[in-house]
C-alpha cells in the first residue's frame, strides 16, 4: 500500500463538495479524489495513492511505471482481492473464506 500508482483521468465530477475523478490504471478503473491536485484535467496523468492524486506525471513516465509495477506483480497487491491473497498466504481455502464474509 505504500506504492503510488500512475493513472489517467477519465472524467471529473463534484461529490459532497469534493472534486472526484474516475482514473484508469492500465485497465483497472478507480474513484480518485483530486483535492490535492485541484487543477488536474481529463486526459492528464497523476501519481495516485490510496485513492488520492498526489502529483502530476507525464504520459511516458506513467506508462513505464505501470509496466514495471505490473511486471513486479505489485498491481495485484494494490488492486487484487485482498482476502484471497491473505487466505492464500495463510494456507486457507479462499472460497470458504470469501463465502463467510
Amino acid at each position, binding site marked *: *500500500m*505504500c506504492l503510488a500508482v500512475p493513472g489517467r483521468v477519465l472524467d471529473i465530477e463534484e461529490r459532497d463538495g469534493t472534486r472526484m475523478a474516475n482514473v484508469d490504471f492500465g485497465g483497472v478503473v478507480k474513484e480518485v479524489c483530486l483535492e490535492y491536485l485541484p487543477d488536474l484535467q481529463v486526459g492528464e496523468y497523476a501519481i495516485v495513492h490510496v485513492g488520492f492524486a498526489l*502529483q502530476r506525471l507525464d504520459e511516458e513516465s506513467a506508462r513505464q511505471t505501470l509496466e514495471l509495477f505490473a511486471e513486479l506483480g505489485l498491481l495485484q497487491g494494490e488492486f487484487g482481492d*485482498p482476502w484471497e491473497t491473505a487466505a492464500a*498466504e495463510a494456507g486457507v481455502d479462499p472460497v470458504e473464506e470469501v463465502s463467510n464474509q
Partner: protein
Amino acid sequence: MKYIDEFQDPELARRLLDDIHATVTRPWALMEVCGGQTHSIIRHGIDQLLPEQVELIHGPGCPVCVTPLEVIDKALEIASRPGVIFCSFGDMLRVPGTGRDLFQVRGEGGDVRVVYSPLDALRIAQQNPDREVVFFGIGFETTAPPNAMTVHQARKLGIKNFSMLVSHVRVPPAIEAIMSSPSCRVQGFLAAGHVCSVMGVGEYPELAERFRVPIVVTGFEPLDILEGVRRAVRQLERGEHTVDNAYSRAVRPEGNPAARSMLEDVFEVTDRAWRGIGVIPDSGWRLSSKYRDHDAEHRFSVSGIQTAEPAECRSGEVLQGLLKPHECEAFGTLCTPRTPLGATMVSSEGACAAYYLYRRLDLPATKAREATPVV
C-alpha cells in the same frame, strides 16, 4: 536472475553502470529508504550489477513492517468489539499481533473490511450510522495526506461514527536515528521518491549537512535506481554531501503544498515506536487535538495495551540495515511468508519477503556476479 537486456532501456542501463564502474575507487554503502525500491533492486539484481565496492543497504521504508506491535494489538482489540466495522488496507490483514492477526479476527466473527482508500471507510460510516466505523491509518508521508483529508471530511460532513486509529511515521527522523546509531555504516541515501512528491525536499539539506551524507531523491524503476546510485557515488567520490533530485518528473522541490498544509492542520508530530527498532523521537504523527473526536485510541480507550515482540525476530536490525534477511536464523525455517514472525516477512514490501520471494538466500556477492555475466 535478471539480466541487463531485460531493463526497459538496456543501452541506457549499461551506460549508467559503466559510469558507476568508472567512478568508484573505494567501498561505499548506500541505503535505499523505500520498500518499493528494495523490491525493484532485488527483482532486477541491481545490487549484483553494481561494482563490488557499492553496497546497497535496505532501509526501513515499509509502512506495514514498521507499524509497532502495540498498535496492531490495539487494532485487533478494537476490531473484535461488537458493533464495530474495522476498515484497513489489505496488506495489514496478516501482520501478526500478539497471538493473532486481523484475518483471524474476521474468522472469529469480527467485521473487518478491506478498503482501497480511506474515503471508502468514510462512505461505509455514512451507510451504517448505527455502527462505529474505524479506519486503520498507517503509513509514511505518502499515505498521511489521504488519511488527513478523510478525517477532515468526516468533520466537515458531521459524520460522528467515524474514527481513525492513527500510526503514521515520518522519514527524516528515521534517517536521523539511523545516522546517529554508533553501528551505522550508511554513507549515502537514496530517498523515497513518492514521499518527496508530497513533502518536497526541504527537510533534507539540514540532515545532509549535519551527517555529511549525500541524499539523492530516487524513483522506483531500475533505471531510476541506477541513476540515483550514480549520483550518490559521484558525490561520495568527490567528498560532497548535498541533496540532489534524480526523480524530478514526479518530485517538485516544494512537494505538494495543499497536502502539506492539510497534514499540518490534521496531525501533530509525536514520538513513535517503530516495530523492531523502538521509539524514535518526533518520528510520527497523531491526530491534533482539534480532531480528537475522531481519534479511535481516545474513543475506545485502548491506550493501556503494551506488548513484546518475538525474541527470534531480528527485523529491527534488518530495518536498520545492520543485518541482511537471510542472516537471521529464523529466515526460511521458523519464519516464512506463510508463518511470518516479523512484519518484514509478512508485508509484500518487506525486505525479508523480498529475499524469500526472489530466492536471494546466501549467494555471496562475488558468486552472484559470476552467475550474472552481463557487465
